[in-house]
């Protein structure tokens, strides 16, 4: 038996259309409740639903903290009438995890490096961008333009899905007063017992394994041999034998390490104090130490090996647009933001603030010292580097890392 409720219409009620419940008709309570629930839901959801054509009021970015320039952001907010909301991450895998669990609805702009953007595109986490709407891309160094730099172009369709931003390697910064340059030219330096207790590496498990993987594959002679997958050697796709070699090598390295540094200031302190004489890093600490040396704050001479002779790891940070962004004003704002961030004037500020090399040619704005320090004439060396990538099996790599940590 269904309970009923009678709804009486007032005299002001407009004429109901045919078929609708008229005055005096009997309406099921369930229907009334459904209507109320739908109304409440609509009221609650309204703030979150915006037509694609509506002017955006917010721009949400998932990005590296080091690239945040408050004055540039403030000017952009004022010009476009949007509020910029950044969320920061430490590693690509963390950003990937965030995007996969609904992040395409939560972020409009995303940053990633190496091969990660192509993974994002394959998994439909990001969308295409139009270089014509980002005029500052004309200032990209030739090596980073789509014609040469293929990591941000879909091979099948030829569409672009990202814009290069900053670049660098995971080279070795070393104390040139203690370590000879010829030793520093090889990854072997990081495993040399002669420097026991005076070496350090980052706490990033992917890059530790990949870098050791290059050395292991070189020692095993597999680096130039045909690979099981038919592709060229990639230190992020190691065979089980190579991974076993990496585990052994990393265990041997443990007693040689003073620590695995967690952040750049810690590494800078360790190098400055002489407690550490060599460590792989993104050259940011190296630039910081060179600046201190130039000011006369330190006496030690530091040098940086960009690409070791066995091969090295490299990265190109990029700006990407999330697949949650539809065509229209929102996409326009995203592309305008990217354009603002890669203008030569902004990129100069980014380089100085973050200590990174830029993919935009800012030589006309830089002194000869800055050009040398920020590797502006060495972009060609990018081709010798293996780009940061997703490990072929995170499960296998995690086991290798855990066994090494427990050993």
């Amino acid at each position: 038996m269904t309970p009923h409720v009678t709804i009486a219409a007032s005299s002001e009620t407009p004429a109901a259309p045919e078929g609708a419940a008229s005055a005096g008709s009997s309406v099921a309570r369930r229907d009334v409740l459904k209507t109320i629930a739908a109304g409440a839901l609509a009221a609650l959801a309204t703030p979150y639903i915006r037509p694609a054509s509506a002017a955006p009021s917010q721009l949400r970015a998932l990005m590296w903290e080091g690239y945040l320039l408050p004055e540039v952001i403030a000017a952009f907010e004022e010009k476009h009438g949007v509020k910029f909301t950044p969320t920061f991450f430490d590693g690509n895998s963390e950003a990937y995890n965030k995007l996969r669990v609904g992040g395409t609805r939560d972020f409009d702009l995303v940053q990633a490096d190496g091969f990660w953007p192509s993974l994002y595109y394959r998994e439909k986490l990001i969308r295409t961008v139009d270089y014509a709407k980002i005029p500052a891309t004309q200032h990209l160094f030739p090596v980073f333009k789509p014609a040469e730099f293929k990591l941000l172009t879909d091979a099948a369709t030829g569409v672009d899905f990202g814009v290069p931003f900053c670049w660098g390697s995971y080279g070795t910064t070393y104390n040139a007063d203690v370590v000879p340059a010829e030793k520093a030219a090889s990854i072997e330096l990081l495993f040399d017992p002669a420097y026991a207790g005076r070496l350090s590496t980052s706490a990033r498990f992917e890059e530790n394994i990949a870098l050791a993987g290059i050395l292991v594959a070189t020692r095993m002679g597999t680096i130039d041999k045909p690979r099981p997958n038919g592709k060229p050697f990639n230190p992020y796709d190691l065979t089980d034998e190579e991974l076993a070699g990496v585990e052994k090598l990393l265990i041997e390295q443990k007693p040689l390490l003073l620590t695995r540094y967690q952040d750049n200031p810690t590494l800078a302190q360790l190098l400055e104090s002489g407690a550490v004489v060599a460590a792989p890093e993104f050259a940011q600490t190296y630039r910081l130490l060179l600046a201190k040396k130039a000011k006369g704050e330190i006496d030690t001479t530091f040098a940086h090996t960009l690409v070791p002779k066995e091969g090295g790891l490299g990265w190109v940070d990029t700006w990407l647009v999330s697949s949650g962004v539809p065509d229209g004003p929102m996409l326009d704002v995203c592309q305008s933001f990217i354009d603002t961030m890669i203008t030569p004037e902004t990129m100069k500020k980014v380089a100085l603030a973050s200590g990174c090399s830029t993919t935009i040619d800012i030589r006309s704005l830089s002194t000869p010292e800055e050009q040398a320090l920020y590797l502006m004439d060495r972009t060609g060396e990018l081709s010798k580097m293996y780009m940061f990538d997703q490990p072929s099996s995170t499960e296998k790599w995690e086991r290798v890392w855990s066994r090494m940590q427990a050993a």
Partner: protein
Amino acid sequence: MKGRWAGRALLGVPTAFLLGLFVLPLLSMVVLSFWRTENYHIVQDWNLGNYITLATGGAYVTFLIRSLVMASAVSLVCILIAWPVSYSIILYGGRYRLLLTLAFAVPFLTGEVLRVIALQGLLGPLGLINAMLMALGNAPLRFIMYTNVASAIGLIYLYLPIVVTVIYLSLLNFDARLIDAAKIFGASPLRAFVEVTWPLNLFGTLIGFALCFIPCLSATLAPRFLGGPNGTLYGMAMAQQFGESGTWALGAAMGVVLFLTSLIAVLLVGMRVNLRRTGFTGFGRG
């Protein structure tokens, strides 16, 4: 009747809180622990693989043993330091004793990360201790630079205030006239302490122990910043599963094991206490 409903309503709030914010997340973690991950993808494939990996994969057992040893040692040291400190405050603190106890909580006004990083600066190669030693022409103390000793110092620094506060509160509620009574009946100060003060404050001491032991077992920050290459503890390894390696299902299984280990540890300690002797009730036994 009205009072009974009011009581149920008041108890309902913490019950709902526990159910919503503790039981449900724990259950979701248990479910996740029986699934698996494949290159950052969760595969809803019911299996015991994660638990088999934890039991047979050596490394995780090592992390757990390291953490158990570390948590036990740190908790014991904290108790050993906290007892005389709390006892002195009770005996000699006078009208400032609450202020003295609260002074121990001052470090809590800053974040845990900040405190650990500050300690890293203190114990590191350029830290106050080693810099002073080197300025005096001595060799730096390498055992406090990125070692398990440094981790232990960090954990003691982090959790000692909690233990001091708990033991202080226990002693505050202790009727000191019982010591006088014991002395009147011929007990020496040591015997009065061993037979009266200690057992009657044992429950508070054990609560202090547990409140130090459990967070130490899952500690991530101190071993990460202070522990060095050989300092990986269970909590740090577990956090890694949820971070860069993205092996969430294995991390969930590690969480379940950690929860059960903590529970067993607390039960083992609790079973050794005669609650009636310590003057506590409320465990359903009157």
